[in-house]
């Protein structure tokens, strides 16, 4: 094998490479992590329009701060290795030291990654169970915030290609727009009449799939008045890209007035409306296909 000059010089290179990398990494991480947490954290999505949204911002901040040292380690390592151990043209085919293993490094790596991973999973579970984080939880939710019995119920109905809403606490009226009172705990019952949609109120940190025949529950506590965009986040056919609306969080008094107005509007059509139900099955004979 003439192409294999094997002139490794074991032990010739005694520079403290490992120590250099670790020190550089520690310095960079200690500087970068707080900076990321302080400056990047607050601008992470989805914002502070709801309690759930704020929770996600905290969550995203913690995750970003956790991955920063990991990123720094790889960055420092590769910058060091790729510059320091670059082959000189003359000795390009010289073999390096035949290091095949090192138990200490293996064990350390496995332990550290495991600890990081388990803490991330534990933290995520903790955050999730606090208030459901605004995600759809299915018909029998587990992450139920305190006082769920007294929440305002809003049913979100997806159909191609629009959202409508029913307020069972106000006679099951159906509305074309979503209005929520400020500083109120809301339980969203998301369902669909045809295909899968996904109700996404980005600014509020709420996303829940709308499935036919399923009552998908998500919790939300609004903060101060504002408007927010609602989009469909699950491909639902031709006009999926146009399935968006603007929703509103309004002061309590304004909400009461709006509801009254909607009840008046609904009075004339109430007898044509299906009874409020947690899910609806449209006429089964009218199938596509």
């Amino acid at each position: 094998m003439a192409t294999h000059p094997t002139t490794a010089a074991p032990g010739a290179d005694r520079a403290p490479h490992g120590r250099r990398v670790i020190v550089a990494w520690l310095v960079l991480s200690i500087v970068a992590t707080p900076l990321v947490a302080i400056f990047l954290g607050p601008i992470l999505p989805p914002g502070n329009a709801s309690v759930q949204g704020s929770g996600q911002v905290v969550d995203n901040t913690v995750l970003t701060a956790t991955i920063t040292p990991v990123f720094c380690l790889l960055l420092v390592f590769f910058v060091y290795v790729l510059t320091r151990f670059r082959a000189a043209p003359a000795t390009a085919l010289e073999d390096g030291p035949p290091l095949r293993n090192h138990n200490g490094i293996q064990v350390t790596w496995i332990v550290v990654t495991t600890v990081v991973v388990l803490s991330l999973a534990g933290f995520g579970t903790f955050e999730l169970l606090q208030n459901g984080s605004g995600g759809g939880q299915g018909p029998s939710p587990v992450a139920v915030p305190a006082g769920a019995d007294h929440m305002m119920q809003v049913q979100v109905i997806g159909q191609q290609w629009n959202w409508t809403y029913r307020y069972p606490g106000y006679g099951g009226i159906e509305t074309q727009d979503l209005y929520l009172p400020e500083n109120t705990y809301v339980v969203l019952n998301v369902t669909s009449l045809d295909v899968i949609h996904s109700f996404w109120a980005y600014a509020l940190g709420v996303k829940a799939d709308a499935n036919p025949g399923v009552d998908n529950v998500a919790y939300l506590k609004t903060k101060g008045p504002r408007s927010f965009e609602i989009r469909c986040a699950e491909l639902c056919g031709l006009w999926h890209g146009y399935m968006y609306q603007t929703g509103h969080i309004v002061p309590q008094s304004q909400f009461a007035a709006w509801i009254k107005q909607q009840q008046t509007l609904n009075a004339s059509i109430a007898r044509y409306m299906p009874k409020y139900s947690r899910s609806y099955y449209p006429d089964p004979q009218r199938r596509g296909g």
Partner: protein
Amino acid sequence: MSTMAVDVHPPVWRRLIGFNLLTGVILGVGGWYVGWFGAHAVVAPSLSFFGDIDFNELSLVLAYLGGVVGFLTGLGFLNYPLARLRGYPSSLREKETQGVGRYFTLCTDHKVVGIQYLWGIGLFFFIGGLNAMLIRTELLRPAHQVFPAGTYLTIVGVHGSMMMGMMTSGILGPFANYLIPLMIGARRMAFPRIEALTFWILMAAGVILQTTIFWGGFPTGWTGYEPLNIEAYQGMDCYILFFALVGISMTLLGINMIVTIVTMRAPGLTWTRLPIFAWGVLSTAILMALAAPVLVCTLSLALFDRVVQTNFFVAAQGGSSYLYENLFWVFGHPEVYILALPGFAIVLEMLPVFARKPLWGYRLAVAGLLGVSLLSWFVWQHHIFVSGINGDLRPFYMLSTELISIPTGFTFICGMMTLWRGNIRYTTPMLFCLAWFFNFLLGGLSGVFLSDVPSDVTTHGSFFSMAHFHYTIMGGLVFTFFAAIYYWVPKMTGIQLSERLGKIHFWWMFLAFNSTFAPLFAIGFLGQPRRAVTYAKSLQFLNDWVSVSAFALGLSLLFFLATFVYQLAFVKKPAEANPWASRSIEFQLPSPVPVHNFDRIPVFSSDPYGYGEGPAPSWTPAGAPAGRD
């Protein structure tokens, strides 16, 4: 050469007659019409006994199935089964031909199949890439402007399906088929005809997916969610048949790979001496052999729902859309590791060569590959965290998803420690491998946000998740795919590729890739949903930036294609047998590899990573038995 004294240069027209691609296409078209009219004439009336059969759907489905059968018949795939039916005994190989013609036939030489795969998959990869360019053209403006809404969804769907369907075999098809027998010291794959079959089924599938545009396209994207699937146009059937055929191809490819590696290793090639690439192929093949049948079944159910009016996925009739989501992702998550794992293996295979050091932590690396392969079965519901399926199981899926980063981390530490104190050469394949670390790191770290349920509420279904899987799949698989091309094509063709052009391609692609997908993380964080043709006005600058970068990325791939074809067809610089000074056995063979691979089956006495450990031991020790075969 062959001692047969037959006329090796018959006239062209004579050579076109017989079982080959041309006959396959002719019979394929014929079979299509037979299926179409047969369905109307015979099959549909008899099936209508059972109720409400959709004649148009049934005709189209049977037409395509007839087309596939005709195509395979024309290629000659029916000859051997019919001979067996008449009682002729087993045989391994079809009649071997020489020359360019064998690339257009059913050829049982694993090296020919590998090269067929390379060009076939390359073709569909570029078609998928063109679709991506169209998507980015549409997204230059926030409102919908270039394509009709349905066309846009079809483009999105074809791009996704083409990439996910074709590139699943992107490494195992070309490179594992070509290299695994060489690396394990064998002369063939375990089932040479099935090997060829996987390729031609895949080609038929790709064509079927393209023809969806004649049937109204399909609106569901590559996931084909129900019940949108049921109400879609006939173009949906093309998607279903495409993916089902891909699933069949994957299953057979996976089984063939496993059997080859398990039963056909040469003497001395113990499990701890197996090249890490073979381990990567093995762990991928396990997923293919077991997950792809789930895909085939799921899509068959979808087809039943469309054609014979079953109700698997119709909630009002006792079905459930959740059933589809569950079944699809039971396949779908192993699927994404089918895409990622070969990339891990290629990186670990090449680093020792270009760092001139043994692979560090061989057993840890193997554990990593197998660990990912195993864990990928237990994470599927993280794709549907907000769907309302099993809300109480989300902490479990969050944990299992995050656990998978531990074996993935094994790959990282093994790769990093292999580089440590090495003598690193920056060749083109090495650059692509190093880019893998960068891309997969970003892909993996962004995955943390998607695996975490609270954070996933916002990132799910947004451009963030889209950027995430492009970093892992394009950054992980496609970059290593190119590493493999630059590394092994000189061996496969005997033609050396230019390092200078390769490095231009690399830097162009690497920068354009990151410029395309890094801003998508921000776009997703800012709330732009996937697959929607409209977006907020405030996001136009970022989207335009991404589109322009995507065009640059597309051009870098065109640059590659042009230089690649130019070098293979015109420059033809002969390659040395071992251009990278590798110790792996395939580089000890002549370039290109002779049809029989080895004069004698080699005998292994070490793994191929003994850099710095003295001269490589001989594979043909004097006085050793001739080996099996």
